[in-house]
C-alpha cells in the first residue's frame, strides 16, 4: 500500500517536473532556433520555426561586424569575476558580523541594510554618476566593480544563514584559541559553502546581465560589456531580431558553460550542507 502510494507520487513528480521543464525550455529553444533564421522568417509569425532554411549567417555577421566582440566578452568576464569574488568576501563578512558579532549599532546597521535593498535603483543612478565622476573612475572597470562590491540582498541572505548556524563549533574553536577572523575563515566559511556557491552564482549573473550601469558608466567601445555591446544591434528604427537572437545565445552560452563547470561544486556544497 505504502509502496504503491510512493510509486504514484513519484510518477506525479516526474510529470510535474517534465511539464515545467518544457515550459522553461520552450522560449530558449525558440530563440535558439530563431538565431539560425533570416530576419523575415522570424517576424513572419506563424511560420514554422522547425523547418526551412537554417544558416550560421547571423553569427557570422555578429563576429565580423564588430571586431570588438572578443573585448566585450573579456570585459564582462573580468568585471563579473572580480566583482563576484569581492562580493562573496564582503557579503559573507558583513552577514556574519550582523548575525554573530556584538557591537554597538548592529541593529541600526541591519535596518540600514534592509532599507538599502528597498530603494529603487533608478533614483541612485545619477547621484552615483556624480560620485564616480568626482573619484575619476567613470569609464573604467572600477566604475562597474566598486559600487557593486557589496550586495545588500546577499548580506541579508548570509545573515539569515549564519543566524541558524550552530554556535557550538565556533565556541569550541574559540577554546582552541582561534581569533574571530580565524574562526570565520577556517570554520564558518567552509561550512557555508552551499550558501556561498548560491550567492556566487547569483552575484555573477547580476554582473553579467547588468545593463543600466554599463550604459551610463562605460563610454569607450573597447570597455563595453557584452550586454551593452549587444544593445547596438537595436537600431534607431527597429530591432534586428536575427542578430539579437544570435547575440543572446552568445551571452547565454558562456554562462551555461560556467554553470555546468561550477555545478559540481554547487552540488557537493549542497550535499555536504545536508549531511551536517
Amino acid at each position: 500500500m505504502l509502496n504503491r502510494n510512493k510509486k504514484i507520487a513519484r510518477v506525479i513528480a516526474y510529470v510535474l517536473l517534465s511539464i515545467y521543464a518544457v515550459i522553461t525550455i520552450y522560449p530558449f529553444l525558440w530563440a535558439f532556433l530563431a538565431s539560425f533564421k533570416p530576419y523575415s522568417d522570424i517576424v513572419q509569425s506563424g511560420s514554422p520555426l522547425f523547418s526551412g532554411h537554417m544558416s550560421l549567417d547571423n553569427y557570422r555577421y555578429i563576429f565580423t561586424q564588430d571586431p570588438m566582440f572578443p573585448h566585450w566578452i573579456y570585459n564582462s568576464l573580468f568585471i563579473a569575476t572580480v566583482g563576484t569574488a569581492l562580493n562573496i568576501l564582503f557579503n559573507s563578512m558583513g552577514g556574519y558580523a550582523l548575525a554573530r558579532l556584538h557591537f554597538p549599532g548592529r541593529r541600526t546597521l541591519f535596518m540600514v541594510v534592509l532599507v538599502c535593498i528597498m530603494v529603487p535603483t533608478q533614483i541612485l543612478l545619477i547621484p552615483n554618476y556624480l560620485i564616480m565622476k568626482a573619484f575619476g573612475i567613470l569609464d573604467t572597470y572600477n566604475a562597474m566593480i566598486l559600487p557593486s562590491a557589496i550586495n545588500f540582498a546577499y548580506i541579508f541572505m548570509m545573515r539569515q544563514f549564519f543566524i541558524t548556524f550552530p554556535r557550538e563549533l565556533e565556541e569550541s574553536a574559540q577554546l582552541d584559541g582561534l581569533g574571530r577572523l580565524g574562526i570565520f575563515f577556517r570554520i564558518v566559511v567552509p561550512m557555508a559553502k552551499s550558501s556561498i556557491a548560491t550567492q556566487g552564482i547569483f552575484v555573477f549573473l547580476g554582473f553579467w546581465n547588468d545593463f543600466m550601469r554599463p550604459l551610463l558608466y562605460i563610454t569607450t567601445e573597447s570597455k563595453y560589456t557584452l550586454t551593452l555591446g549587444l544593445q547596438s544591434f537595436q537600431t534607431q528604427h527597429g530591432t534586428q531580431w536575427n542578430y539579437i537572437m544570435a547575440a543572446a545565445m552568445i551571452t547565454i552560452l558562456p554562462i551555461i558553460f560556467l554553470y555546468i563547470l561550477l555545478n559540481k561544486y554547487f552540488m557537493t556544497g549542497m550535499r555536504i550542507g545536508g549531511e551536517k
Partner: protein
Amino acid sequence: MKWNHKWSTLMLAAGAMLALGLAGCSSKGASDGGGSTGSKTLTVGFWKGDSPKESEARDTLFKNFTKDTGIKIKQKVYNDYNTQLMTDLVGGTAPDVFYVDSSLLPSLQTKGVLESLSSYMKKDKYDASDFYAPTYKAFTGDDGKQYGLPKDYSTMGLYYNADLLKKAGYTANDIPKTDTEFLAFLKKLKTKLPGVTPMTISPLLARQMFIMQSTGAKIITKSGKANLSDPKVVSALQPLIDADAKDKTVRTFKELGFGSAMDAFGSQKTVFSDEGAWQVSGLKTNFKDLNWGTTEFPTINGQKANMIFTVGWSMNAASKQKDDAWRFIKFVTSKKQSQQYSTTASVLPSRKSVAKAMGLTDNKEMAPFVAAANYATPWIAGVNLDTIQSRYENIIPSAFQGKVTLADALKQATDSANKDIAKQDE
C-alpha cells in the same frame, strides 16, 4: 580545510586582479592626459543609426577630419540617447559636439546647454541657403540664433506592395492622390483581398502630428502646453481612428501582432505602410523578395503634408574647445563631406545641391521622400514634446482599438501632460 585553502587563494587572486585593474586604469588615465601634449582630441557623441553603412560613413567622416586638421576624434556612442544624454548633462560629461534630434532642440536650447553657432557662421560667412529650409530652421532657437546644423533628414512616404495591388487588379498609378479617395480605396482593397489588411500604421505622435495639424490647429499652445484635445485636432485625426476602430482598413502594426510596421509590410500582410525613408534599407536587407515601391502621401484636406525628421550637429556650451568644435561642425556639414556621408550611408542629405549631385530626385524609390522635404512639418513642438508624446502614446492604442473615444483619449493625454508640465514650471 583544503576547500578553505582554495577559496583564500581565489580571494587573493581576485584582490590581485583588482589591484592590477586599478593600476592599469590609472596608468591608462595618465597616458590619456599626457597624450594631449602632441595632438588635440575632440569628443563627439552620436548614435549608431540604422545600418552598418552608416557607421562606415561616419568613420570615414572622422578619418577625413583628422587627416585634414590633425585633431583626433574620441567617439562616444549613445545606445539610449535620452537616458545617457541626461546623465551626461547633469554630470558635465557631455561631448564637445553631439547629435541633437530636432525634437529635443527647444528644451536643450532653453536649458542653455547648446552653444549658439551664429557668431561662428557669421565670422566664416557660412552659407546656409543650400539647406532645405525645414531642416535648417529646425535648429533655429526661439531667439533667432542657430543651435545646430542638419546632418541629414528623413521624411515619410507611402510604401506599397506591388504584388498585392496587382492581385486586387490595380497598379501603383491607381493609388488615389487625396485623403478621402484614398480611404475609400482602402475599403475596396479590403473586400478584394481577404486576409490582407489594406494599410498598417504606427501609433506614434511623430507619425500622426502632421495629420492632427492638418485642419489648422497646433498640437501645442503658444506657451508650449499640450493642445491635443483641441476640437480641430480631434476632428483631423478622427478619420484615421475610424478607419481602424470601425472599418478595420487601417490597423496598427501592434494590432496585427508585429513588432514594427516594416515587419507587417514585409510579411505581405498589408498593402500599404506609411514609414520613413529608413525603411528602404530595412526592406532591402530583410525582405529581399518583396516587390514594393514608394509614392508621396495623398493630400490631406487638399494640402500636401508630411513629417520631416532631422538630426543635427550641435556644440556643447560647456566645451573647452569651441573653435575646434566649430571646425568639426563646419567640416562635416560641408558639401564634399556631406555627399560622402549621404552616399555611403544611403541617407537623405540636408543640402539641396548634394541631393542633386546624388541624383536623388530621379531615384524612383527616394524621389517621394526628397519631394516632401520642401513642405513637410518638422518634428518639433516646444520644450515639452517628450511628455506630450509619452502621454499620447500611452492612450492612443486604446483609441485605435475603439476602447475609448478619440476625444476622451486626447483629453486624458492633454490633461495628464499639462499637469506634468505645470509641475516643471511652478
